[in-house]
């Protein structure tokens, strides 16, 4: 038994550990003290990482739908069928597309992007989780010209001030929460912004209470406080940049409180400050504006220029950053470069030997609803997309659906062709953590049955669509990635040298600041005084790595068994006032529609807030419409 070093496949913190196997079977996980990110500290998910691949319902051989039934097929049969049908659709002018995945490696995502753009000649390529992380990255990019974080996870430990846009960090990113806790032990000030009294809020020195959708108002208040107290960094590159005066004018009427002034003091005077941001909820463009406001706060206090200080977007899934960087987005090319950047287009055309498509591509939700042929790589859209089960219905109407996955998911079950690929424990490949560290997976066991590494399957598809797919190994794919996305140069051999290796994506230090004040629109009215908000941005309970793990799935499964109709949460005061108790039914109505759902009363919520866990969003889909938040009226049903 020899331990195999690998990278954690769950969240985007980028921890590392050893996988242990015996007689060709995974048996456990061992921590590594020398890993630069995790340093021997793993969360519950990391400690159980071997379980899903071992216990999960694995896809072991290609499946092909015949007479409306999925049945076993050979690889040749299955691939021939995929190529034939997709070609037919393209030839008849029907739209086709590909969904990549934050659960897949960089190599797989890169090849998905290449297959779509060079093989299918379309920009119809995206990944489901993108819609949830895009506003964060876009907001940061808008202000500083960079979407990439300017801080490493472990820098948080030495920060004096930490500002956390709370989305229950202790549960979503336990390793990041660990850094925050270490910083607190050293006397750092934690400022939280949120609407539930989470663990991190209980540990904070200062909590800025807000309502869902109103986070921006608090951030405006903080920026205004910095300006009023003269705490801006006049040596910063952001000082006097475009929009600085407009920002000052725009925030002249921002509401400030004593607490905001205190927070501003701590942020402004800190030598090192960390700004951590979970996706916020809000209507329309609000989440992007929230991210921009946080970036503005970091920019004017100079924390985007200081080493060890900066912004960190909290991405839920391990390779969300990698999927972005590989160009798995309709409007972004590898390197996350805008799709109309002529230099990048030229580079890719040279490299791929094909002219790039120039028509707009569709995002994940639209792809599901409008393409005739779709290839889904390692993802289950209904469990990830905000639209929930409506995605399943949309996929049911797709003429030809192909799924590449290691696990049997609901999406696999409705596919026309399912191709078995290796799980994270069985393939070579790299993941890019949210801080931009490119790290390798260690193939510990053989893929089960006839499953093949995903990059091989995608490379074969590339070849069949007359695009170069002649890679001898995953390293060959990495070499090409470095050419396609120059910021990945140097990541071809992430294991080189001693120890864990891992290389950084070359992020430019060049930041072009552009500031502007944002406005927060009021949401509630006398008629609909409550705010219903989706809580969280990811449902781990439906992720195969959790749902197939005996240790990790217990909590999620029991919740679903206890509440088959889901629930929404309200605070005790509201419950008493409305005559509602845990388990009782409430009617929620918004401008979009209404729904009757069970209530769960919580003691750590603010009045006026109604939360629906991301896992139960389907039960209030009528009420939320296409938004993450809505003004509602709550009454006994």
């Amino acid at each position, binding site marked *: 038994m020899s331990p195999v070093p690998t990278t954690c496949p769950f969240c985007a913190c980028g921890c590392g550990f*050893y996988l242990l196997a015996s007689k060709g079977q995974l048996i456990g996980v061992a921590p590594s003290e020398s890993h630069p990110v995790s340093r021997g500290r793993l969360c519950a998910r*990391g400690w159980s990482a071997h379980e899903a691949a071992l216990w999960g319902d694995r896809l072991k051989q290609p499946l092909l739908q015949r007479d409306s039934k999925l049945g076993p097929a050979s690889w040749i049969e299955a691939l021939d069928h995929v190529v034939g049908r997709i070609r037919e659709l393209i030839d008849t002018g029907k739209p086709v597309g590909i969904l990549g995945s934050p659960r897949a490696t960089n190599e797989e995502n890169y090849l998905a992007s290449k297959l779509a753009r060079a093989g299918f000649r379309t920009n119809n390529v995206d990944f489901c989780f993108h819609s949830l992380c895009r506003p964060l990255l876009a907001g940061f990019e808008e202000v500083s010209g960079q979407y990439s974080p300017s801080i490493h996870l472990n820098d948080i430990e030495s920060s004096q001030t930490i500002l956390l846009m709370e989305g229950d960090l202790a549960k979503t990113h336990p390793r990041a929460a660990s850094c925050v806790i270490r910083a607190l*032990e050293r006397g750092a000030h934690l400022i939280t912004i949120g609407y539930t009294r989470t*663990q991190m809020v209980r540990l904070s020195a200062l909590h800025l209470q807000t309502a869902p959708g109103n986070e921006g108002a608090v951030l405006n208040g903080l920026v205004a406080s910095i300006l009023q107290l003269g705490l801006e960094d006049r040596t910063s590159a952001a000082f006097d940049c475009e929009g600085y005066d407009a920002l000052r004018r725009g925030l002249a009427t921002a509401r400030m409180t004593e607490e905001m002034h205190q927070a501003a003091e701590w942020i402004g005077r800190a030598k090192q400050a960390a700004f951590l941001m979970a996706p916020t909820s809000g209507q329309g463009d609000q989440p992007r504006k929230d991210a921009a406001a946080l970036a503005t706060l970091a920019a004017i206090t100079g924390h985007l220029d200081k080493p060890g200080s900066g912004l960190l977007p909290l991405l839920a899934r391990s390779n969300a950053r990698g999927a972005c960087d590989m160009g798995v987005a309709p409007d972004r090319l590898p390197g996350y470069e805008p799709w109309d950047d002529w230099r990048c287009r030229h580079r890719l055309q040279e490299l791929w030997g094909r002219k790039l498509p120039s028509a707009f591509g569709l995002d994940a939700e639209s792809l599901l609803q409008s393409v005739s042929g779709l290839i889904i790589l390692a993802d289950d859209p209904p469990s990830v997309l905000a639209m929930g089960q409506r995605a399943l219905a949309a996929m049911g109407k797709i003429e030809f659906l192909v799924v590449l996955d290691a696990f049997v998911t609901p999406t696999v079950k409705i596919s026309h062709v399912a191709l078995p690929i290796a799980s994270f424990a069985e393939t070579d490949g790299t993941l890019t953590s949210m801080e931009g560290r490119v790290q390798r997976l260690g193939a510990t066991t053989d893929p089960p049955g006839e499953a093949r590494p995903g990059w091989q399957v995608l490379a074969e598809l590339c070849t069949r669509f007359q695009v170069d797919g002649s890679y001898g190994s995953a390293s060959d794919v990495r070499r090409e990635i470095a050419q396609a996305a120059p910021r990945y140069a140097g990541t071809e051999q992430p294991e080189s040298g001693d120890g864990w290796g891992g290389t950084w994506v070359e992020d430019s230090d060049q930041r072009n600041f552009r500031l502007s004040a944002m406005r927060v629109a009021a949401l509630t009215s006398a008629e609909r005084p409550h705010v219903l908000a989706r809580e969280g941005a990811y449902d781990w309970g439906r992720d195969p790595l959790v749902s197939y793990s005996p240790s990790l799935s217990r909590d999620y499964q029991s919740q679903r068994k206890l509440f088959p109709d889901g629930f929404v949460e309200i605070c005790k005061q509201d419950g008493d006032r409305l005559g509602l108790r845990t388990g009782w039914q409430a009617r929620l109505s918004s401008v979009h529609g209404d729904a009757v759902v069970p209530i769960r009363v919580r003691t750590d919520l603010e009045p006026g807030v109604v939360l629906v866990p991301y896992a139960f969003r389907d039960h209030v889909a009528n009420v939320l419409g296409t938004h993450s938040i809505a003004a509602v009226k709550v009454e006994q049903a």
Partner: protein
Amino acid sequence: MVFTIQRQGISKWLEKLLETSAVIAPVRGPSGDVVFSTIRSPAQVLWDFGNPLHPPKQFVLPQTDPIVAIKRNGQRHEVEPIHDDAPRILFNVRSCDAKGITFLTRMHAMEPADASYLRRSNNITVVSLACNSPCPQGFCVCTDSGPFLSSGYDVQLTDLGENYLVEVGSEKGEAAISGVADLFRTATEGELAQRKDLEITARRHFGKETCHFASAMRRISTGRVRDALWDKMSDWCLECGACTLACPTCYCFSVKDLARDGGWIRCRLWDSCQHAAFTLEASGHNPREQRKERMKRRFFHKASAQYYMRDGMVGCVGCGRCVKVCLGTTNMPAVVGAIRKGKWHE
């Protein structure tokens, strides 16, 4: 019986051991960490090393442990126990870890005895290496599990410089040195005195800090830890379960059937009392729903008089692993200190 073996003789001894058993020892892992691994040659074995973060518990009680094979036979099911009794030698295990294995074996041998565990552990010989210079995080003096052992090993080695002192503590230990008797000679009075001196010097490394377990135990056993203190401490725990998984004395498990070849393999899996679902009942009720309840339970099991009476020691061998693996800050020394002082981060 106490012997001496020359430094150069160790390789020959290990080669002999490798003929009949799998030898597991601390080696340099692929990414630079020290890890326990099955060795192929004596040269791989490390002699000067920081204790691996993952304890050798995994070899007596694997994280995934097949215990029963279940097969369908017509309308009936056939159930057959799976035994792993391969001979293994755990070599250069530190004192705390040897003591941890003793603890686990004692627990599993209590009625009703765990046959699956005992078949495996009965075929494991523990060769421990006394700690001449204790590790910085360790507090084994507080738990009577190091830096040198007076019992609980099959063989205990002490580095005397040119030679190793070889203390044999059991029949399994005798068997381990029997094949190559010419490599060992009876230790001299001088060598025994040297070992004693080394132990005294090693103990001095721990400084004047005294053991806090006794006062913490009094408070825990008599319910004199304020609820507010548990409440406060529990916010500094991130529920990773690492303190239990990496603990050489923790043995809690869950059971799950693994579908294989038309039948099932019933496996015992490491579990943690710190996970919310550990005590979740089928009805949905959870007697320890709050994290502070789970923490309280953990420390009651680790350091209450009730368990001390049963196990003959606290449920801790002072290895300090929980200090290193804890995602939060609620490791054994920190919590024991807080219980003793009645204060947390104040």
